[in-house]
């Protein structure tokens, strides 16, 4: 694939896991408990959904100590 001008076409994806950045304290618990391992902390220490592989199972929301996480159903499933 090395001689192609562009390997990938960027795609817009809506994140199903939404973090309230004002509330997030960067404790990392949501990142730890997510079964699919799709959350991570950004350079400001706030959690965000890095990979579009959500099972909308909700431990991230339930285990968040400051209610900063909301899990929405991914677009295709809604």
């Amino acid at each position, binding site marked *: 694939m090395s001689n192609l001008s562009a*390997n990938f076409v960027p795609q817009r994806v809506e994140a199903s896991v939404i973090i309230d950045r004002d509330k997030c304290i960067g404790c990392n618990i949501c990142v730890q408990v997510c079964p699919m*391992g799709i959350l991570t902390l950004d350079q400001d220490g706030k959690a965000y959904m890095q990979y579009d592989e959500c099972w909308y199972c909700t431990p991230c929301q339930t285990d968040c100590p400051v209610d900063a996480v909301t899990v929405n159903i991914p677009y295709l499933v809604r």
Partner: protein
Amino acid sequence: METRTYTTDVLIIGGGTAGTMAAIKAKAAHPELEVLVLDKADIRRSGAISMGMDGLNNAVIPGKATPEEYTLEITASNDGIVDQLAVFRQASECYSIVQELDSWGVDFEKDVNGNYEVYRVHRKGRYVLPMPKASDLKLILAKKVKQMRCKVVNRVMATRLLTKGNQAVGAIGYDVRTGELVIVQAKAVVMTAGAAGRMGLTDSGYLYSTYENPTNSGEGFAMAYHAGAELTGIECYQINPTMKDYNGPACAYVAGPFGGYTANAKGERVTGCDYWSGELIMNMWKMANKGEWPLFLKLSHLDDAAISQIEAILHNNERPSRDRFHAGRGKDYRTDMVELHFSELGLCSGHSASGVLVNHEAETSVKGLYAAGDMACVPHQYLLGALTFGKIAGTNAAHFADSVTHIEPDPGQIEAEKQRIARIAGHSDGVPHQQVEYKIRRIVTQYLMPPKTIVKMEMALEKIAHFRKVDLQLLGARDPHEVGRALEVHSIVDCAELMAKASLFRKESRWGFYHYFLDYPERDDENWLKRVIVRKSASGDCELYTKELPPYILKPEPEPEAGVEAEADSTDQQALTH
């Protein structure tokens, strides 16, 4: 690739329900031994019941049901292909597990006298014990693992077993956060890596809206196969009745005791037994093909208090996002029926019968290797079976580990696995895992879905061989997380191939829709009341053969005549036979 190594007495692969219980009980049996749990996620929320479960489907509570009754029920439900001793052992020992969970703080439904409440969903016996507030079940189990001083390594995905001849001596894994190769040397290994839940495509089109937790992608089946263990029942697929587009179960088990039921489009009750089996799915499939479709979960006739109680269970437990799914579509149980459908195809012993062959001691055909839960063939074992056989596997693995010394792993096995992983990790401009996964799951859905035919399954095998040669070589990953997902695609391909081969080998139909084989449409007990085994031979070939069932310890009851219902009372679940 950096390498990290561990040495332990007992290694548990997968810290879900069975794995956490195995770890707890291995340590309880031999506190002086080291017990290490590897999990590709985090044991607090990993496995099939990340957000707990609303009930135990097969609790044999003294005074309410007997192990004999349960064993005969499962013998009939799985069309005779069971190790009755294993099923009987689960039924006999599960009550002590219920009591233990109760003492650990799991909340069970009890009557005014403090006795466990049980309901009927199976054809005959009452085994459904609600635990309406058990969304924290995994947190409780994980805490117990820590209390017992087991070592836990999260975010390491085991990818291959290490063997010496026919003995398990450890495992190789991959850290999906750091990208390190992980080598574990162990005296005994317990495999509790869950179902193969990402086989068929989902109706929604979203790859991860599977019935099973999508982390349960078949590594357990693939690893056991590559280690030379016998697998069985792979032709007995799992397909479950779920809410249409949402991966939550159809929930007749929860709604039934409140008066909810399965209905047709007119809201009329569809009668029969809601117990999940290939027979139920066959009945649903026939109805769908006659145009008597869709079916619905009907609750709208219930009063608000009952519906609120049902919502309190369904929207806080197991699949809590169900509330926003319904809200997003503008549906309310008070006014609307919930459309039902089939789940995608998978392999899972919890609801069906596919898995590594184990006996009543959770021993596999490989020395020092034990298996439990959704990847070990104890049919229809559900959550309580995973806990009970997790205990048996952990206890026996600890005894075994106590009796042997460490065996050095074979450097050739480590190097071969390192090469497999490095090929993906070094291919950052390769085709993304989502697309490669979509394509193999498309093959599974289009060619392996029942009704099975020789033509379709031989085409599947041809396409899978091509897929290995072409698509898996294109598969790439940009970081350790993606390498993990890509390795899962390898497991899906392995499982797909075994599904086709095992299905072609069993030349009859059995288990309702799960092995509905049009070239051999009849059940043939004379020739096929036995196991089909798949195993990788020492030379690397896939061997298939039959194996006689262990002798029954209880005489099966004669099957009722077709169309004749088992006795049912008005408050209980009824079946989907028309």
